[in-house]
């Protein structure tokens, strides 16, 4: 069987896979609502005249409104760097304990309106989570004033009270997320050192405690290794969603993508239970039961050790096909040494140990794995929180401070911790929360102190040993808050600000004490301006020696792996993070809530992911509400009631629920969306220590008769079996550059490149804008969608409206499955306005509101549009979006408003995030992608003002800029020097246009996806699983 597009059938849903014809009741049919049937409408002549008269009068009176007096209030003293209307870019970084990204923040008149990945600094890639983070800055539900015992106080009173309260306290515990910055850490440590028994605990929601312990035991350093994904020829992932959610997904994606172009392609094996974004991109995805993961890693280790001539426990038998897969993966890992890498995201010592040892045996250290460089994104030790609970129960803590953490909500034993906190409070322990919001933990605290958003704070970070980042605030505190470090300094009785503290620390530790004040100032200014500084490496880790301790650890791990494997036959629940929502920290961010998960393509809320096999087996239907009861290790049980989502590619007996939902107290968007799944998790003990584990086998499922709709966007349109995506395998591609794209080649040969048309040939005078999207590089992460929303003021509409197919995204990432329904191949395709030269939408517009521009852009004049929606109907790509209601508050009639409460259009504060260069559309108007016309115009103007030609690559669209993998290329097709032209020429064999046979002449080309898969034999094997 050939692997090309020709033989493939693509499908979006299980119904479609089994012959869906567009009218399944499950999907709601072709139309989201019943069509209005023609009504016999009888009206007398008089009634008609009356209606006409009243209508005419209403229109006339509504349009006659007094012209409002507009004020123009200039600055009193205009800041030097601010010119109204001209943006200023500041370098800074984002870090909220979950994800790190170095950024350039675009500010207009002093307010940040867009985050852009830093073009030069390390970690200069953004995920959707970071792209949408400005909404969380302008969140009106943030705390504004300190609350002491339920009463709002002012800052002076609070500081006085706290100084008094903290004086003479003995035992103080501070719980922080991972702090990476030298100065930040130094300050917190200084603070706790001021008490007789002060200690700082690090709590990570997504813990890497096991990996830290393993690195410490094996290599003697307690930090994570840096993963050079770009150097790995063979990459094996085991339960690790490193492209979607694990550690630094956007950064990993940028490294991964360097090896996904067919000219220099790695091979990626992924063993996993739930279908993750990473698994969807793997060349070979092997579904496993989650409790098999340790055994799989041990199998890899044993096989590699055997080849390396090292004694190792024999591999566990996992069944014929899986053993074969492991043989193959191990063989390729060994053959590719030292450019091979195994990654697992599990917080389990055996898993991490076997992964690290395998990496060390293939000689990955120094190539694909770097412990000297290190990675400091997680520092937490899971045992610490367990110890804290014990201390609270023993009443040995005087003051407990939570800084930027919310364990009551997102700790697997949050509810028991909450009990302990409540009891400790009664017995005199003082609970203080330094927090942006009055969230679940802060609600229990005696004292809740508001802190500033990361964008309002000075901060520093050392993500790797050779990188130091300084993050400047990009806006003054909007709500009268203070950054936590400043508050801390006040409580310590220091008359300095954190800015000065940071500078002093920087001078001492980074710039060096020597040198004049002026030299230091230059050093500092440069670092703040650039946002980063490269440091030299000094740490040394010890070589791998199989000490008796290590051998014992391996034996213990092997035993643990076989114990866990016993659970592999049973029902198991896995908690996971959805790519947009992640841990739920930003759950009140409407743009993130409405960003579809790349795999399930769902918005707004969580659900129970059920494999296709399990669904058949338990007779569960899609969207049927299930009751999930988890028996907990600490006793008792926890129950969630959520709809089922039947997901292809999930093996039998596996259920999944996303964390990050079911929030309380943090705002209207987050409330009543999904249910909290954190308490479903448990822990794994190993070597006398406990590790947070998001797998549990003590789970019961009870189907109910209820049904709850899931707001899916992939079901809104149907490709109807037309070939809109194309793919091939690397082997075939090497033999034939046109592999997978043969139909286009034949067509081109037949037509000799001439395009037969009755339309006049368009000629473009200055520029002709075009885009090429490489489907091999697109991993489907959705960063482009989030960036587009922010750049173009795209409104979120809410779950109810999404269910009615009223979502407004200008770019969407379509996900298609193909092949085996139990382990499908996944392909992602960003779909945006194709800017056709012969656009079907233009012909049908009765008012010429959409027309071709002189630069090849299909333009949309909102103020001309009368909302017939003919264009959307006639668009073969289904990329036009209609404003069914006033989602943005731009309409004249408040009656039409359907603004999402707490969304980015809701309040004066929230609206500060909007791009002032892009108009906010009102009800009854069609809209769609503009190729970021505002950016094109700005770049052209800059060139004209500088009196120079426009440079190639000077115009970037928001989606292109945000893409961590550089899958999107944009530019002037008329300019030979543009990368987009080079791509179109050099990769002609892979280039295709969607529905080219319609002769719409799109401006957006796609490059065929290439999978690194030895074509024939592997495919056959795949079918056996």
């Amino acid at each position, binding site marked *: 069987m050939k692997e090309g597009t020709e033989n493939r059938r693509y499908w979006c849903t299980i119904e479609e896979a089994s012959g869906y014809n567009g009218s399944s009741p499950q999907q709601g049919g072709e139309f989201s609502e019943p069509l209005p049937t023609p009504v016999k409408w009888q009206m007398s002549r008089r009634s008609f005249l009356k209606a006409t008269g009243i209508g005419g009068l209403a229109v006339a009176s509504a*349009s006659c409104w007094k*012209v409002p*007096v*507009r*004020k*123009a*209030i*200039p*600055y*009193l*003293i*205009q800041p*030097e*760097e601010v*010119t*109204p*209307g*001209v*943006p*200023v*870019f*500041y*370098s800074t970084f984002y870090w909220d304990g979950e994800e790190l990204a170095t950024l*350039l923040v675009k500010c207009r008149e002093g307010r940040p309106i867009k985050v852009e990945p830093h073009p030069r600094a390390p970690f200069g890639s953004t995920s959707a989570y970071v792209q949408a983070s400005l909404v969380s800055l302008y969140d009106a539900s943030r705390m504004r004033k300190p609350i002491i015992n339920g009463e709002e106080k002012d800052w002076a009173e609070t500081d006085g009270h706290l100084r008094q309260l903290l004086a003479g306290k003995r035992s103080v515990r501070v719980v922080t997320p991972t702090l990476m910055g030298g100065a930040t850490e130094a300050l917190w440590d200084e603070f706790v050192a001021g008490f007789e028994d002060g200690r700082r605990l690090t709590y990570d929601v997504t813990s890497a405690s096991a990996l830290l312990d393993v690195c410490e035991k094996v290599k003697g350093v307690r930090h994570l290794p840096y993963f050079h994904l770009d150097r790995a020829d063979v990459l094996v992932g085991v339960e690790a969603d490193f492209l979607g959610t694990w550690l630094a997904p956007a950064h990993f994606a940028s490294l991964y993508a360097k090896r996904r172009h067919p000219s220099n392609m790695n091979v990626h094996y992924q063993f996993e239970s739930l279908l993750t974004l990473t698994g969807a991109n793997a060349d070979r995805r092997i579904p496993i039961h989650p409790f098999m993961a340790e055994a799989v890693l041990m199998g890899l280790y044993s096989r590699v050790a055997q080849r390396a001539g090292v004694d190792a426990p024999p591999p566990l038998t996992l069944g014929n096909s899986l053993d074969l897969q492991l043989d193959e993966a191990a063989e390729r890992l060994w053959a590719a040494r030292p450019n091979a890498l195994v990654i697992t995201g599990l917080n389990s010592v055996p898993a991490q140990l076997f992964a690290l040892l395998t990496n060390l045996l293939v000689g990955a250290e120094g190539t694909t794995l770097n412990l000297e460089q290190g990675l400091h994104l997680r520092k937490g030790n899971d045992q610490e929180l367990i110890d804290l609970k014990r201390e609270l129960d023993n009443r040995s803590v005087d003051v407990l401070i939570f800084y930027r953490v919310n364990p009551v909500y997102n700790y697997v034993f949050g509810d028991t911790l909450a009990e302990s906190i409540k009891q400790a409070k009664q017995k005199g322990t003082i609970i203080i929360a330094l927090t942006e919001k009055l969230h679940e933990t802060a609600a229990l605290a005696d004292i809740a102190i508001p802190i500033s958003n990361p964008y309002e704070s000075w901060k520093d970070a050392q993500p790797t040993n050779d990188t130091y980042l300084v993050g*400047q605030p990009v806006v003054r505190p909007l709500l009268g808050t203070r950054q936590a470090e400043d508050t801390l300094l006040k409580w310590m009785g220091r008359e300095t600000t954190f800015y000065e503290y940071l500078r002093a620390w920087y001078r001492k530790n980074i710039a060096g004490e020597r040198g004049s004040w002026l030299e230091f100032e230059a050093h500092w*200014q440069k670092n*703040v*301006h650039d946002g980063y500084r490269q440091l030299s490496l000094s740490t040394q880790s010890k070589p791998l020696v199989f000490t008796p301790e290590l051998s014992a650890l391996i034996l213990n791990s092997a035993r643990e792996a076989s114990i866990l494997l016993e659970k592999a036959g049973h029902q198991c629940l896995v908690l996971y993070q959805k790519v947009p929502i992640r841990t739920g920290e930003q759950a009140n961010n409407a743009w993130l809530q409405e960003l579809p998960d790349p795999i399930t393509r769902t918005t707004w809320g969580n659900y129970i992911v059920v494999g296709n096999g399990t669904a058949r087996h338990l007779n569960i239907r899609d969207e049927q509400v299930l009751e999930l009861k988890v028996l907990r290790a600490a006793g008792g049980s926890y129950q969630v009631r959520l709809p089922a989502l039947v997901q292809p590619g999930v093996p039998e007996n596996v259920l999944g629920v996303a964390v990050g939902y079911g929030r309380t107290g943090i705002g209207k968007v987050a409330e009543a969306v999904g249910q909290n799944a954190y308490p479903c998790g448990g822990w794994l003990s190993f070597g006398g220590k406990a590790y947070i584990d998001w797998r549990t086998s003590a789970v019961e499922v009870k189907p109910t008769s209820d049904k709850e709709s899931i707001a899916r966007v992939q079901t809104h349109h149907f490709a109807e079996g037309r070939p809109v995506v194309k793919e091939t395998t690397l082997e075939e591609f090497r033999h034939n550059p046109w592999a997978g794209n043969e139909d286009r080649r034949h067509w081109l040969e037949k037509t000799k490149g001439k395009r037969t048309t009755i339309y006049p040939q368009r000629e473009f*005078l*200055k*520029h002709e804008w075009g885009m090429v999207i490489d489907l091999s590089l697109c991993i489907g992460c959705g960063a482009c969608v989030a960036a587009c929303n922010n750049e173009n003021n795209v409104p979120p509409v809410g779950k109810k409206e999404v269910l009615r197919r009223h979502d407004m995204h200008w770019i969407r990432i379509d996900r298609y499955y193909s092949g085996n329904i139990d382990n499908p191949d996944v392909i992602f395709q960003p779909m945006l306005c194709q800017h056709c030269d012969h656009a079907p939408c233009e012909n049908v517009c009765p008012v*010429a509101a959409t*027309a071709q*521009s*002189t*630069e090849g*852009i299909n*333009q*949309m*004049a*909102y*103020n*001309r549009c009368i909302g017939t929606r003919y264009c959307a109907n006639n668009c073969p790509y289904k990329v036009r979006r209609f404003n069914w209601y006033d989602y943005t508050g*731009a309409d004249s009639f408040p009656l039409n408003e359907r603004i999402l409460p707490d969304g980015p259009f809701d309040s004066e504060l929230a609206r500060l995030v909007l791009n002032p*260069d*892009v*108009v*906010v559309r009102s009800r009854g108007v069609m809209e769609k992608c*503009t190729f970021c*016309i*505002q950016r094109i*115009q700005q770049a*052209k*103007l800059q060139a*004209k*003002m500088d*009196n*120079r*030609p*426009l440079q190639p690559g000077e115009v970037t669209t928001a989606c292109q800029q945000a893409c961590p993998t550089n899958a999107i290329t944009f530019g002037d097709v008329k300019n030979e020097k543009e990368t987009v032209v080079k791509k179109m020429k050099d990769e002609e064999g892979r280039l295709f246009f969607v529905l080219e046979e319609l002769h719409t002449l799109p401006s957006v080309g796609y490059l065929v996806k290439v999978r690194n898969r030895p074509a024939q034999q592997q495919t056959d094997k795949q079918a056996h699983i």
Partner: protein
Amino acid sequence: MASYISLRGVSRYVLGVAIVLGGGTATHSQQADPKTIEQGKQLFQTNCVACHKINEDFLGPALAGVTERRSREWLYAWIRNSDSLLMAGDPTAVELDKKYPARMTPFTFLTREDIDAILIYIEAEAKGEVTVAAAPPPAEKAPPPAEEHKETLHGLPFRAPALPGWVLPALVTLYLVVAMGLIARWNRKVDQLLDQEQEPPSMPTWMWLVTNRFVVAGMFVVLVVVGCGWLYEAGANLGHSVGYAPKQPIEFSHKVHAGQLGIECTHCHSGALRGKHAGIPSLRVCMNCHQAVRTSEVVLASGTTGTQEIEKLIGYWQRGEPIGWVRVFSLPDHVYFNHAQHVVVAGIECTECHGDVARMNVMTKPFRISMGFCLECHRTRQVKMDNMYYQAVLSAHIRETGGKVPTVAQIGGQDCQNCHY
């Protein structure tokens, strides 16, 4: 905070202007040729005129004869950075600082050549060698010739009506009335022929006007047509508020500042050189001069004097209160307009859209700034081909078409998303 964009842009622009205008060759020994004088005049009006006059003391001393009073080197140092001379304790500088209350702004971006040009201009002006150019005629929008309108709109020939709006409805009405009358008369005749035996009913002749349904219908049609015509006219003017001259919190007179004092528009509205908004100057900019200028004998439109208005300004400054000016020019939200494109790139005079501000005591909106107003200019104005950007993208096309420079509309000035996005 470090920024990627700084004030450098402005100074670069000013420098650029200076270099382009001066050809970069003006030197010491150069004679007062008209080109240098013109360059000096430009620079003087952009940078100096706010504080200096040639023949009389203003905020700063009268500049006539300054080249004889001071050495060149001293002048270079003083003009480019007066603070450094003061800090160094230069006796002349200290003396000047004592004598004049406003300290001179540093002009670090002026090159020696620029300063030379300014000085040459000052000398020439003091000697009366500069010929006074006639004041530009009031910018009135002369309607362009009708054939200029032969543009296409969405592929259809489009011709803007050259007649006044009321003519067409009036003609139609006239035609209808005449037609009605004729039909009515003909009708009567037919009736008479048919009913010759019967006596025509006796009623006054004018009564047929009221009773004849054709006449009544005709009247109705006339009313509707005239009404619609009027509604159309009124509707088209709606929101354009031509002649809008709101009362401002301070009765600022452009006539005094831009007219009599000859201060360049962009001296205060400097944003026009950099981006989207021309901007209203911050209070600090006003106070640059008004720290010293506290009196003015000018009598303004409402009868107050300049002194009274300056007092108001000082009041705002002392209270630290920004002034809430009322916007006179305001485009709807769905229009994107960038001043820099028009002022810097196209080199359009401010007066073309804002009217002859230099003669306005009270700022008044002079034109109906509608889409037609914009397009009229886009359709007639040729692209500035001395810009390298336009050269790069258009020179091949111009060669092919025999050297005809395209208009703005022909290269996309009529695209919807040129202004609406």
